[in-house]
């Protein structure tokens, strides 16, 4: 969640250590906003990908997720993935409620759904660029 600018004033009114604390608040505020933008971009990729995902029991399509990470040297990354725990629960294809075939379906040229995520990613590129540009233009510091 974005933090208010009031905390920045509190930080700058104190000693050096508090100044850096204030700067951290600014950074946190911007980081939170960028994380929200990255999440929105990832959700757009899923929106474009889902129609390419083959559906039998629905376990695979219900295993999509966006993971937002803030890492020191990489900045903020948004990763879209399929596989692992599925919101469909236990199904015939995923009896434990865990999809372990997402990669195989994606890479097997003889399988319906070949390259489903790559197709969605490619189709969403222009929308993702627009989301990032709009989000960055509207950053509140």
């Amino acid at each position, binding site marked *: 969640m974005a933090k208010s600018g009031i905390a920045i004033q509190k930080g700058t009114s104190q000693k050096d250590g508090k100044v850096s604390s204030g700067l951290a608040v600014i950074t946190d505020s911007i980081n939170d906003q960028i994380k929200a933008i990255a999440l929105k971009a990832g959700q757009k990729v899923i929106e474009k990908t889902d129609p390419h995902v083959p559906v039998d029991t629905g376990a695979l399509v219900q295993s999509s997720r966006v993971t937002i990470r803030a890492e020191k040297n990489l900045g903020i990354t948004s990763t879209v993935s399929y596989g692992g725990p599925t919101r469909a629960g236990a199904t015939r294809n995923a009896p434990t409620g865990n999809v372990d075939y997402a990669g*195989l379906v994606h*890479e*097997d*040229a*003889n399988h319906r759904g*070949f*390259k489903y995520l*790559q*197709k969605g990613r*490619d189709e969403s*590129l*222009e929308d993702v660029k627009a989301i990032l540009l709009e989000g960055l233009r509207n950053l509140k510091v």
Partner: protein
Amino acid sequence: MATNPFSIDAKDMLVTAGVGTFAATSGWSIHISKEPDGSPFPNTTITIYDTGGPGPNPKWLLEEVSIQVRIRGDVNGFQNAWIKAQAIKDALLGKDPSTVNTTRYTGIYMDGDISFLMYDDSNRPIIALNFRTIREPASGTNRESL
């Protein structure tokens, strides 16, 4: 002359590099878009699939397209299949800019590295590599050369 799909130009690159022979009935047999199964083709096949790419540039003759190269080895022949995958990687990845047929290939990259997929129902290993390229077709109705 029409612009070839990346798969066909990549096939020609692999044939030139001595990695395999197009539609051969022995040795490493290269195919496009459909993996053969059974006579007269061998188990050892290399099949190239076009896998799309981001929307091409509408103004300039510039495209970023991708392929998957799928290797099927002999029955339980994982090691030789992997060696062939490595040879394909070496033949395409980082290749100097060149014109193949009519298209200028400025760079070839890999998405991920060599990946073992599975054994098929006949216990033949299946290994996949994914490549993408930036290329400049020689002509296009509405687009201009760079």
